[in-house]
């Protein structure tokens, strides 16, 4: 009887370490390293007129101060444009240290290295940078007006304009019996992982190797950039991602200035150097997201069926565009959601502002797209007096319509084709879970008590598991341990557990015998990174394929040893045996010994693999042609395109009209990410995602003033909800397999956050009776809206 691991609620392997304080995070390394502090711009936009470090010389323990003038060779160039795009006509990336001009508060101007971080900060405090302030461009309205420019050579502050169209949306809308036109907006926020960024670097002069630890979502990305910029051989740069206390997207940016400056300083000084981001630095130098304004025109028939949708939106990209236009592309291509569109046109403008650069934050453009689409469907229901769930049902793509081709290009440069799904079943599921059909009575009963309840619903489709590829290496050691490595990184998702589950099933071993390493270029040098809900799909499948190779090899070797036919063998509990005859078996550990012909035995068991142990076939070399020593394999998974997960959220809220306070009474999620490897981990992802969705809807925003100062750059002022504010969602699963990958799985990492603002806006609008067309919304804002409504 073999144990099935896939699909089980296996406890997370990493939790023993992480929950008992035994995790090894970035700051746990390099106790004796030199400390780094950065002098960052206090101005949103200014010319640098001088940098005076004289007073810093009085700090005992100062090692060095670096400015742009000190940066050699390619380190002095702007940082790489990570994702170029033909429509990105005016890309701009920052210099590792500001070159004469700063474009947002927090941009690094000088790097201070000292015996420790305290001294580095003392010295940084004494450095006087002369600035000649320039007009700051803050907010989309200001950027669009182009009254002032962020970059003098970028006309109109426009980085890119892109249009995609399915059918002829404008003609379809013109011919539609009903047309609505309105604006929708979402504000800027940021990832705020509990652990900020950090980099530790050591130059090994003996080996001529640079070893970098960085709290990143892509160790191979950092490695490639550092090797390229420094002109070092790839093998001379090792990048290791230790335990990471959350990333949520912002840590996929690479190289951040600190990721090239710290290694460069380590090599220059011949000393270990470490920088750990503080919370203020995170607010003003780790990337942000979400700020977008949208104009919507929609045409529909008397039944609420959408005939044409025309969306124009403006994306605030911040000061630079290292990540290209991926975010607005995702909004544009994920906005259609689970609905059948015949005529859809979307055009966006990506605008520079003198604020922190924007790159994906969990959800990555989808929360905005979902907000636009779902608010639009709610408006259609309101206009026609139809039930909002019914309007959705009438527009859903049917289960028999897959693959569903939008004729557009997705964020990975591949066609936007939904691979599989069952959206009507998801809708029925979430209606049941939240009590949609019985809500009218519930609302009435509450109203009789003077309470104002409302219900909302939001649907999303999420492209997950984007390419180009990931790889996996599976190695059965002679001690029976199964060592697994994949190149992408972990930020606490549970990769060590789910990848072990996959290998355990493929190889017929116990998951506790499987040891998974992620994000270490020494163990697996080819990888892309952890983003876009892709780790399970990409590395999970790659590891499964590698494990299948190992299985085939193990059976071939065991068949020879057991003198049995390979097709009669199975692997169960780590033993290769004749099916149904466990007495005729050989442990995988011993198969691993036999897989590697030896001259020198290293243990009693290893004697079996030595030259005189068994009569050899004189005509076959010890390692036959096309074979390799060792019970190991490496394989890759590269999908033709993304696989599309889907889900729907529904919420019941109570609004207090006297205070504007919103209380989330119930939150229901039905999610379909294909077969679940570990339902507990998927639910954990949904819990966390819902928390971030609620946070984005009701609490978190970045308060930039007109001069570009971030007024709430601390956890004192930036409202991150506690557990007390976050509802525990009721969760239902559907498991529609993907036809695109061997395991049939889809990603689940970001789903929970995507419909939060759309769902809660709908519920609040329903409860308060006021139009909600921008998120997040605070109690004072809601209170004011209720007051306006009452006054009219």
């Amino acid at each position, binding site marked *: 009887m073999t144990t099935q691991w896939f699909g089980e609620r296996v406890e997370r392997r990493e939790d023993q370490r992480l929950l008992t304080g035994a995790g090894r995070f970035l700051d746990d390394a390099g106790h004796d390293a030199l400390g780094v502090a950065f002098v960052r711009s206090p101005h949103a936009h200014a010319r640098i007129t001088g940098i005076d470090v004289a007073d810093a*010389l009085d700090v005992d323990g*100062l090692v*060095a*101060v670096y400015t742009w003038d000190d940066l050699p060779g390619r380190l002095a160039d702007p940082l790489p444009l990570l994702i170029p795009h033909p429509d990105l006509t005016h890309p701009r990336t920052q210099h590792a240290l500001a070159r004469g001009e700063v474009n947002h508060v927090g941009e690094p101007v000088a790097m201070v290295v000292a015996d420790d971080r305290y001294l580095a900060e003392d010295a940084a405090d004494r450095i006087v940078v002369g600035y000649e302030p320039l007009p700051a461009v803050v907010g989309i309205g200001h950027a669009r007006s182009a009254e002032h420019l962020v970059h003098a050579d970028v006309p109109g502050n426009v980085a890119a304009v892109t249009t995609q169209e399915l059918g002829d949306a404008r003609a379809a809308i013109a011919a539609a019996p009903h047309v609505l036109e309105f604006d929708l907006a979402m504000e800027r926020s940021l990832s705020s992982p509990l652990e900020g960024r950090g980099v530790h670097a050591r130059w090994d002069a003996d080996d001529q190797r640079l070893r970098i630890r960085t709290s990143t979502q892509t160790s191979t990305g950092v490695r490639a950039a550092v090797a390229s910029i420094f002109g070092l051989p790839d093998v001379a740069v090792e990048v290791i991602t230790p335990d990471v206390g959350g990333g949520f997207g912002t840590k996929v940016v690479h190289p951040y200035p600190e990721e090239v400056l710290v290694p460069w300083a380590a090599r220059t000084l011949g000393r270990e150097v470490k920088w750990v981001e503080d919370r203020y630095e995170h607010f003003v130098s780790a990337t942000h997201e979400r700020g977008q304004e949208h104009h919507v025109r929609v045409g529909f028939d008397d039944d609420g069926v959408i005939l044409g949708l025309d969306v124009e939106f403006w994306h605030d990209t911040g000061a630079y565009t290292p990540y290209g236009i991926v975010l607005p592309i995702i909004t544009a291509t994920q906005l259609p959601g689970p609905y059948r569109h015949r005529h859809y046109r979307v055009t966006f403008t990506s605008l520079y502002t003198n604020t922190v650069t924007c790159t994906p934050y969990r959800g990555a453009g989808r929360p905005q797209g979902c907000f636009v689409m779902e608010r639009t469907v709610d408006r259609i229901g309101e206009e026609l007096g139809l039930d909002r769930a019914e309007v959705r049902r009438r527009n859903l793509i049917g289960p028999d319509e897959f693959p569903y081709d939008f004729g557009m290009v997705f964020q990975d440069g591949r066609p936007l084709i939904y691979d599989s799904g069952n959206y009507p079943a998801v809708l029925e599921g979430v209606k049941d879970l939240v009590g949609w059909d019985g809500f009218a009575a519930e609302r009435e009963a509450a109203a009789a008590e003077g309470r104002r309840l409302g219900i909302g619903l939001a649907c999303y489709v999420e492209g997950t598991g984007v390419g180009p590829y990931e790889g996996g290496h599976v190695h059965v050691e002679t001690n029976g341990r199964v060592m697994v490595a994949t190149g992408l990184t972990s930020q606490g998702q549970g990769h060590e557990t789910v990848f072990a589950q996959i290998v355990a099933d493929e190889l017929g071993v116990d998951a506790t015998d499987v040891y998974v390493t992620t994000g270490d270029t020494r163990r697996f040098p080819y990888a892309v990174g952890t983003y876009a809900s892709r780790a399970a799909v990409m590395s999970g499948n790659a590891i499964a394929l590698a494990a299948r190779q190992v299985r085939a090899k193990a059976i071939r070797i065991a068949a020879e040893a057991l003198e049995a036919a390979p097709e009669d063998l199975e692997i169960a509990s780590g033993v290769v045996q004749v099916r149904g005859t466990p007495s005729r078996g050989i442990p995988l550990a011993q198969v691993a010994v036999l897989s590697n012909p030896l001259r020198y035995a290293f243990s009693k068991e290893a004697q079996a693999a030595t030259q005189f142990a068994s009569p050899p076939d004189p005509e076959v070399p010890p390692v036959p042609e096309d074979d390799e020593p060792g019970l190991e394999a490496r394989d890759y998974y590269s999908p033709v395109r993304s696989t599309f997960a889907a889900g729907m959220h529904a919420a019941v809220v109570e609004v207090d009209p006297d205070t504007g306070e919103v209380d989330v009474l119930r939150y229901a999620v039905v999610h379909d990410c294909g077969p679940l490897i570990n339902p507990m981990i998927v639910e954990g992802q949904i819990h966390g995602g819902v928390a971030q969705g609620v946070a984005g809807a009701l609490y978190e925003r970045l308060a930039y003033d007109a001069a570009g100062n971030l007024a709430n750059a601390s956890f004192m002022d930036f409202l991150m909800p506690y557990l007390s504010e976050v509802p525990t969602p009721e969760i239902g699963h559907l498991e529609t397999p993907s036809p695109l990958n061997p395991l049939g799985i889809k990603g689940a990492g970001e789903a929970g956050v995507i419909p939060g603002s759309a769902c809660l806006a709908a519920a609040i609008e329903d409860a308060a009776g006021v139009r909600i067309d921008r998120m997040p919304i605070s109690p004072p804002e809601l209170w004011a809206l209720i007051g306006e409504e009452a006054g009219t």
Partner: protein
Amino acid sequence: MRATFPVSAPPDAWAALTDPLRLAAALPGCRSVTPDADGDGALHVVTEVAVASVRGLWAGTVAPVDADAVRVRGSGAPGGVDLVVRADAARTMITVEGTVDGPLGTVGSTVLAAALRRTAEDLLAAAAPASSPDAPGQPHPPAVAAGPAVGATVPAPRAVGAGRRRVIAATAVGAAVTVIAAGRRRMRRRAG
């Protein structure tokens, strides 16, 4: 590297620095100043250098280039230096240009420039006859002001007090300033 900075010194300070003995006294951390045996105006300087956390003994020569500039070359634990130090005619601006390598080359150009400027200012201040011998952080001027014979080595008193807390860049800029001053005196003498 290249750095330009203003200096201000009492009128007599430059002149006072023509005396290797006074220079040796005024240059913090200076071990010795030896006029070159050829009498060409070059000085051989051995001094302690401390810029940021780079510290150690440094030996080099300071040789006149023209009336307003000297070339400072030398090496030691802190690193190698090859700099031309030029003063403007009014003696209000100093420009330093050249290369610095080794540990001194890793501290950052702004730190080097600030250290050079501070050394020049400290040196000029210390060399001024008006400066109080008991001023805190100032090296004591030597008791004897008579110039030594060419080729003789002037041992310098160890810098006291100033060294530890304040990071003193006792680079050869000080000596350079001296030689510039000396050069101008010679020029004047010849012109006279």
